[in-house]
């Protein structure tokens, strides 16, 4: 009874702190600060703990209610010592979580731990949720107003058309009333040849237009044929709806974190599933922005994460791998012909070219597609225009000096370095 009272007092106290904090951004050193606690939690605890869900370690929501504060201090600072010492509670946790001891955090002060506990205990006040409503609706209102403007414009046009017809009718009526002949005389009409006949009888015009038609159809035929095998914009449906927009855009994950082979290999590499699990071991559900129009709801994304778990064989309940895997069969988007040798490392690591230069705004792509045409002309253009990054690279030291003297330029393009030679890419 006393304990729960205490808990209630804590909550009230914390709420008060939050309110004060929100207004003045000042905080007394002695009070537990849930905002500082959140930072500490994300930095130290989030890798293994979640608030409401069991992860590598137990869920931490309301942990202060379960354990004594002093006990928590010593547990967080050195859990294995407690296990060794045979503390009953400590051993129980240790047994429950596959006999893996929690990492020790001796660097955390008691105050830090208080802050963290404050954060884990913090429940946001209910009215705050309703307040968010209109704010979220605001962007939606933007798109609707566009439609309204268009609709209004259409209405205005329709009214104009109706008005014109009415005016025309009225004028005709007035003309008829005043006895003015509106139709031209029939003889005049017959004497005038129709335009198409005049055109057909003029041989020069016929030849001219035939030539024009042939040339333009050849132009379009050529344009069409040149597009054969060019898959620009190819956007296949993938077995898992993987959103680069969320990963590279919203979460700003560096491309080469997942596509690490691009640094050393000719292939950028499709990340193996263990790379996904580096993060998704802890991120089991999606909590980011939704795109309701396309049906990309939180549930939708969470379902896609479950697909990853199925493929990699991750048992969420028990937080362990089952060993039953089912490799993901991605549909390849960028596919160069076999007779072309392309090396990612050369461009990404040596040339320090941004991935986006060729792959486009990947961070904005909800579904990945081929941005560039990947034709030889496209490659060559870039080689002609792009300067080679020679700074701080011993390899280029001598060559660059000699070549820039030869060409009389400061910077050398890839083409001047021999990047247009057939055999550099075709062997």
């Amino acid at each position, binding site marked *: 009874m006393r304990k729960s009272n205490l808990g209630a007092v804590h909550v009230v106290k914390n709420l008060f702190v939050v309110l004060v904090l929100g207004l003045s951004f000042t905080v007394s050193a002695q009070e537990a600060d849930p905002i500082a606690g959140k930072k500490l939690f994300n930095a130290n605890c989030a890798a293994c703990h979640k608030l409401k869900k069991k992860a590598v370690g137990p869920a931490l929501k309301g942990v202060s209610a379960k354990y004594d504060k002093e006990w928590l201090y010593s547990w967080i600072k050195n859990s294995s010592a407690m296990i060794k010492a045979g503390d009953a509670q400590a051993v129980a946790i240790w047994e429950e979580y596959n006999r893996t001891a929690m990492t020790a955090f001796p660097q955390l002060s008691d105050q830090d731990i208080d802050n963290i506990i404050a954060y884990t205990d913090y429940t946001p006040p209910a009215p705050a949720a309703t307040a968010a409503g209109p704010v979220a609706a605001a962007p939606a209102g933007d798109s609707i107003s566009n439609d309204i403007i268009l609709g209004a414009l259409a209405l205005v046009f329709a009214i104009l058309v109706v008005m014109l017809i009415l005016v025309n009718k009225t004028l005709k009526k007035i003309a008829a009333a005043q006895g003015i002949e509106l139709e031209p005389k029939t003889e005049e009409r017959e004497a005038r040849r129709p335009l198409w006949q005049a055109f057909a009888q003029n041989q020069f015009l016929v030849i001219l237009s035939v030539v024009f038609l042939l040339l333009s159809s050849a132009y379009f035929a050529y344009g069409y044929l040149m597009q054969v095998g060019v898959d620009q914009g190819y956007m296949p449906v993938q077995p898992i709806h993987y959103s680069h927009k969320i990963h590279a855009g919203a979460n700003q994950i560096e491309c080469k974190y997942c596509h690490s082979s691009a640094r050393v290999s000719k292939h950028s590499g499709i990340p193996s599933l263990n790379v996904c699990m580096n993060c998704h071991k802890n991120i089991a559900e999606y909590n980011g922005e939704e795109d309701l129009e396309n049906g990309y709801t939180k549930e939708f994304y969470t379902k896609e994460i479950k697909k990853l778990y199925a493929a990699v064989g991750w048992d969420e309940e028990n937080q362990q791998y089952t060993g039953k895997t089912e490799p993901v069969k991605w549909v390849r988007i960028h596919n160069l012909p076999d007779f072309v040798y392309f090396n990612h490392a050369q461009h990404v690591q040596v040339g320090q070219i941004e991935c986006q230069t060729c792959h486009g705004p990947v961070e904005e792509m909800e579904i990945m597609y081929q941005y560039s045409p990947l034709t030889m002309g496209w490659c060559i253009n870039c080689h002609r225009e792009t300067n080679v990054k020679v700074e701080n690279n011993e390899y280029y030291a001598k060559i660059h000096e000699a070549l820039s003297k030869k060409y009389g330029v400061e910077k050398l393009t890839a083409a001047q370095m021999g990047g247009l030679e057939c*055999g550099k890419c075709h062997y």
Partner: protein
Amino acid sequence: MAANKTYWKNTEQLNEKSPIVDQLEQKEFAEYIPVNEFLEDKEALEDSSTSRRDFLKYVGFSTAAASLAACEGPVIKSVPYVVQPEQIRPGVANYYATAIADGFDFASILIKTREGRPIKVESNTDAPALGGANARVHASVLSMYDTQRLQGPKANGEDVSWDDLHTQVGAKLAALAATGKEVVLLTQTFASPTTAKVIADFTAKYPNIKHVAFDTVAAAPAIDAFEAAYGVRALADYDFSKAEAIVSIGADFLGDWQGGGYDSGYAKTRVPNKHHGKATMSKHFQFEANMTLSGANADIRIPATPSAQKNILAHIYAAITGTAVSGKLSQAHQAKVDAAVAALKAAGDKAVVVSGIQDKGAQALVLAINNALGSVVMDAANPRLTRSENGNEVKPVIEKVISGDLGGLITVGINPAFTLPEGEAFAEGMKKLDLSVAFSMKEDETASAAQYIAAVPHYLEAWGDYEFKAGHFALAQPTIRPLFDTLQFQDALLKWTGSETSYYEAIQNNWNSNILEGTSWNTVLHDGYYSKNTASEASYTASDLSAAAAALASAQASGLELTLYTKTGMGDGQQANNPWLQEFPDPITRVAWDNYLTVAAADASALGLKNVNVANGALNGSYAKVTVGDKTLTLPVVIQPGQAKGSVGLALGYGERKGLQDEMQVGVNAYAFYNNANTVQEVSVSLADGYHEFACTQLHNTLMGRGDIVKETTLEVFNTKDKAYWNAIPVVSKNHIEEQVTSPEVDMWQAFDRSIGHHFNLSIDLNACTGCGACVIACHAENNVPVVGKEEVRKSRDMHWLRIDRYYSSDDTFEGDVETKENIAGLGDSLTTFGRMEQAAENPQVTFQPVMCQHCNHAPCETVCPVAASSHGRQGQNHMAYNRCVGTRYCANNCPYKVRRFNWFLYNKNDEFDYHMNNDLGRMVLNPDVVVRSRGVMEKCSMCIQMTQKTILDAKLEGREIKDGEFQTACSAACTSGAMTFGDINDKESKVSELKENDRMYHLLEHVGTKPNVMYQTKVRNV
């Protein structure tokens, strides 16, 4: 009006109402056409479910479907790893050190793997013993991807599980042990310390089992002689890099003699090294019957029949040791023996005598001679352990198998039912045994005769440890997971012994406790080799050899003497299903896809045997009936210049057999003649009907006195005369003034500026090149060169990017050829003389010249290409853009070096060319960095641009300059003799720039003015 005209067709129409006219009007065709028969044949019509309409529908649909399919690209699936192994990055090659020990070839090697697949073999040049890979070892990676391999164990012809096999064999072994019946474990030579332990444990558990080593091509007499002299069953090793005088009597030490691998040491002393202005090189005498690689490279080669070789050895022994010997040599031989003895004596302890005579006495004499010389070349202290057969042990086993007096037989890594002359009887005998188990990769003759076939992995899928040479160890590790349900022999044996350990653990335990002295296991596994306790002295026990010398001195033969040999490509024949090796042209005869009887020209004309070139140039040879004892084979004949009169030669390893694809069933099984494991047999030869069609890649064998193609000089001239005398730059005339062809005055071309960046050059030293052909196979593997088959090779459509031309002199020497040509006077004389010069001399000088694309700076091929598919790079490489090529073949016609190869057909995924590129397994060996060419496309050596580009990229990634030696091509990396040096001539410190300035340097066909980036170093002979 005109349409009403009627024409008379015949006179019959004059007769009104003629029945014939009526008939013809009714029926258009007078003769009976069986249309009705078919249409009335209800069955035929009902059987056929396709009506004409249906047919048209199908045609229409398939056309539409084909055109639709062509419009849309195929959907390609990419499947990443679930858990990516740390070491594997797609697109980056990994190298592993391992070792091959297949009973014939032993070597420490590196394996290049891509995405977990082994794709290439490289020499492990750091290894102190046997670190060089020969052509067969280079090709062995393809043997792993062999469709004929056993995919799992079998019992009595049926597939079984390993558990069943273990239980059944275990029960039989126990039963045999209970009765005490003898069981023989007949294995290849392993030279493996841990295998020896495993076998010892096994035979300790089953005392009735006896282990006997069996070498397919044995060296038993040499081992016996070594044992008698040094007390160890092994073979003396030789370090030819220390030699100043080498006398070989019938030992093809540049080939497979005693396991081979001597060429790199040999080549070191063959390059004239200048000290204080005077160059020295070793002097090499070769007495032999067949023309071998060693003979071809010798300074002085003396043809001698096997019996004459014995006499010669006895006389050399006598001369060196100062004893007397009976008998007389022929005058020619005596003179050369005297010269050889003088050279040996002059060289002192840097002299060596080696012999391939299969006779214990002869081998004892050789050891005695080398001891008398005090030879430092011979290493008896650390002998080779790569052959171990003891004839006295093997012979009774074979007899017992045939007679059925044996309880059981377990064979490992050998195929005695094929490689024994009494093979068929052996196979029959095996079937009668209580237990027969064959550990084999193929369902070969022995395996199919055995009750149980235990499928073993390829060496690249297995663990192993070896002691190639006393004190020199090697480790083998798997480079890929076993492709099939196979089990290593040692693992099976451990299981049968009742041990729980795996062979891998057994090796590790054995090494940690007995071999490694503090060195970490991981270090050795990484390096692939380990050396320790190398002894410096061996105690030689002299014995009385006068009887042996006398026996040799009096050796005589009555008829023709046959010397069986192993071809550079085929070896003992265990890799016969390897298309790279089948298509590999023999370095001497340049014949691929065959074995044949080599006959001296004089004997051939006496016997009426002929070689002719048919209309398209291809070589045909007579058949000959060859009889040894009661066995007769019909063999095609190749007339071999340099073959000793009275001798013939024949290669082992060929012939029809089981476990071999139809296309590879070529040649004749010469093991039928391999009586008593002796390579020398007395034969009778007679002409047989018909001609055999050879696939020979070189149709013109002599140089016709064109000394500028293979430039040669003698050591004496090299030392005394100016470069201009023996390596003159050709001159051309401009405005009647002679100018050197290298002068810009006579250059019509605008040259690229190649002074900046890399400029690649390849130097080929004709002195160091032994013609071993490792580069040819390495090139095949690196560049996805297709195999085209015998018929296509015969049409000169072979695809080798790198060929090794072999030339014979038509006079006794090449210098003589040049003189003969110079002395031609008048048209009549030129016709007769040139006609005569097409024939090689009886004992010609031989020279090898590797020729690949010369990467001309002024390339004739580039100017004639109508689509600019052939173009030049600033780094000196002549590029070939396959996707641009339309196949006019102008470039090939305009190439003075004839190095361009045309894809007459699609050689991959084509049932007409059913080699490795036609099955999923075989295609695993392809190098993913090099495109597989299609039909109608010209291809050629690219100077391994994928390798040079890789080296450059690595340097860029690491931000450093490139060191000399980093740039390599597949051929230069494979060349263990150091004949090929590749590098950047803009790096003035590099070895190749030094070679470019060398006095011996010349370009092939320099007078054409192509300015090639491949250069040759003039051959210097120490005559």
